[in-house]
């Protein structure tokens, strides 16, 4: 018990230090660097949502971008001022019920999550009966359907034109604040009996059912919660970018998040957090590949798109040679800091297992 209190205090100190870092970062970094830091926080939220579904419950879902779209559009429509809406919807006026709504950010963010969760429940109820590959392709299909619907509902989403000039609410406190809350929720959830039920379903569905775990209830719970997180993440992303359009939420978006989850380790919260940050930063760092390079004696013409080639090649290498990802299913423990020697020796002993 005493040990636990000590750990909790350490966690609290780490949290305060981290918030302090964010405050300082907000002051000293320029807007481009802050954008990357914000993006990393949003990807932590998104990655955790997908990891809950894919990693902890073992449901291979590929519809994340669709739920993000629901969240992003909900919060955009709710927070934009009436004049802004008039400017955006010049082809056809917006549906009258939404024309004069202007909510503050926080309720809109919650609503975004809620709408995505409802979409998740509606989609999950029929498709969660399917297994593995079929589930993957059905969720992918639903993600695409949501996008196609948004492209065609001119009076609600402004169709393919998208929405421009979203209020820039997302700052480092919103993005990382949400991320921290989500991490805490996830840690508590995974430690609870629900978390153990999720893992049981992941390991062996039939055995879990035989032990009295209600498959449908737990699958739904994980799926709906994951969708909620996707919706919130999507809304934050929309308010960071300032523009949203249906093409943003293509399969590529889902792929980026799957990538984060896989690289971090499927079923590890720590892994997702680390890899969300690493992937976001890497994507920016690799930008030099798109431009031309000058080594003094030799000049290489920049090839646009090279960055993504290197990036997908890196992903392939990780999947082929290091399937467990960065963390496997391990989590961060304070023993790593207080007793690093023992941690390393145990890890070395268990390296094959």
């Amino acid at each position, binding site marked *: 018990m005493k040990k636990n209190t000590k750990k909790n205090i350490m966690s609290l100190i780490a949290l305060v230090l981290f918030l302090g870092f964010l405050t300082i970062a907000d002051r000293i970094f320029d807007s481009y660097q802050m954008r990357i830091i914000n993006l990393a926080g949003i990807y932590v939220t998104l990655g955790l949502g997908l990891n809950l579904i*894919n990693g902890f419950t*073992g449901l*291979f879902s590929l519809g994340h971008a669709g739920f993000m779209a629901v969240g992003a559009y909900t919060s955009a429509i709710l927070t934009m001022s009436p004049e802004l809406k008039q400017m955006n919807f010049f082809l056809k006026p917006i549906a009258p019920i939404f024309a004069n709504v202007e909510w503050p950010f926080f309720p809109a963010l919650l609503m975004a999550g809620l709408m995505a969760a409802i979409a998740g429940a509606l989609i999950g109820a*029929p*498709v969660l009966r*399917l297994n*593995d*590959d*079929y589930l*993957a*392709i*059905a969720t*992918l*299909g*639903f993600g*695409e*359907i949501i996008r*196609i*619907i948004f*492209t*065609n509902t001119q009076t609600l989403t402004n169709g393919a034109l998208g929405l421009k000039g979203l209020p820039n609410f997302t700052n480092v406190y919103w993005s990382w604040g949400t991320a921290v809350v989500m991490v805490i929720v996830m840690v508590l959830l995974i430690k609870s009996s629900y978390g153990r039920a999720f893992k049981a379903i992941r390991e062996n569905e*039939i055995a879990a059912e035989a032990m009295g775990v209600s498959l449908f209830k737990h699958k739904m719970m994980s799926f709906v919660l994951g969708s909620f997180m996707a919706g919130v993440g999507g809304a934050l992303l929309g308010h960071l970018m300032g523009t949203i359009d249906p093409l943003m939420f293509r*399969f*590529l978006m889902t*792929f980026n998040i*799957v990538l984060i989850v*896989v690289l971090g380790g*499927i079923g590890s919260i720590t892994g997702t957090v680390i890899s969300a940050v690493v992937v976001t930063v890497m994507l920016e760092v690799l930008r030099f590949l798109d431009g031309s390079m000058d080594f003094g004696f030799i000049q290489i013409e920049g*090839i*646009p*798109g*090279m960055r*993504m*080639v290197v*990036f*997908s*090649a890196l*992903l*392939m290498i990780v*999947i*082929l040679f290091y*399937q467990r990802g960065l963390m496997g299913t391990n989590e961060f423990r304070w023993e790593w800091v207080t007793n690093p020697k023992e941690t390393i020796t145990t890890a070395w002993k268990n390296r094959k297992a």
Partner: protein
Amino acid sequence: MSIQTFMQHMVNGISLGSLYALLAIGYTMVYGILRLINFAHGDIFMIGTYIAFYSMTAFFLPWWAAFALALVLTALFGIIVERLAYRPLRNSPRISIMISAIGASFLIQNLGIVLFGGRPKAFPIDPIFAKIFKFGGVSVVSIQLIIPVVTLIFLAMLVYIVNNTKTGMAMRAVSKDYEAARLMGIDVDVIITFTFGVGSFLAALGGVLWGLKYPQLIPLMGMMPGLKCFIAAVVGGIGSIKGAVVGGFILGLGEILIVALLPSLTGFRDAFAFVLLIVILLVKPSGLMGKTTTEKV
């Protein structure tokens, strides 16, 4: 709607359905043997089209030589993809293989953007494929007749190979029971290589015909048809070649007819396939022609 217009739409639907069927076979064969959704299949199709394009425009080959070259090289390309991206993971959890397949798909697409450029290219069309015939009030471009005929010829060949040759028998054995087939002395690796070769060959055939019908090439062109054709394979019953063909035709005809009969739904054309998928998964998850399997505990 007059009967002529309807026939016109049917002709369009049948040629689109044939193209879908050609691609869907690749999915269904690979899934039947490896239980793997080959996400890269749509991109293999794209590579086939680009090979034909460059053989004609950069190497000035006559169209038939270019097409033959495209078919052979794409089959090789498919085999290489299997060797590099799928074989090392043969015994890993299925989720890893699926992610590897998605990764391979994105790698090929991005390579395509770098190598071929992101701008659309116009596929050169020999006048033979652009002749217009009139049947009553229905005007048919020759390519619309060629597509179903070529599809049927190659399908007949494929069905013959699968049902009447030793390799075909081995393929069926591997898809029935991987381990038992190996114990019976079948070289599973060779069979899988062969399957990928045949699947990619048909994808390239589909790609070349696709280019002749919709002559605009972009590196991401394989993505949507790829997804749709996987759906066609699921609708028909995955693992069944006949099912893939039936699914392809349902999808092709359905897409064309929905736009023709309900013009207000034109924007939702791409959603049709996904709705069809979800309906079939809920009503009959094994597909129209698939066999239901029960999992033993």
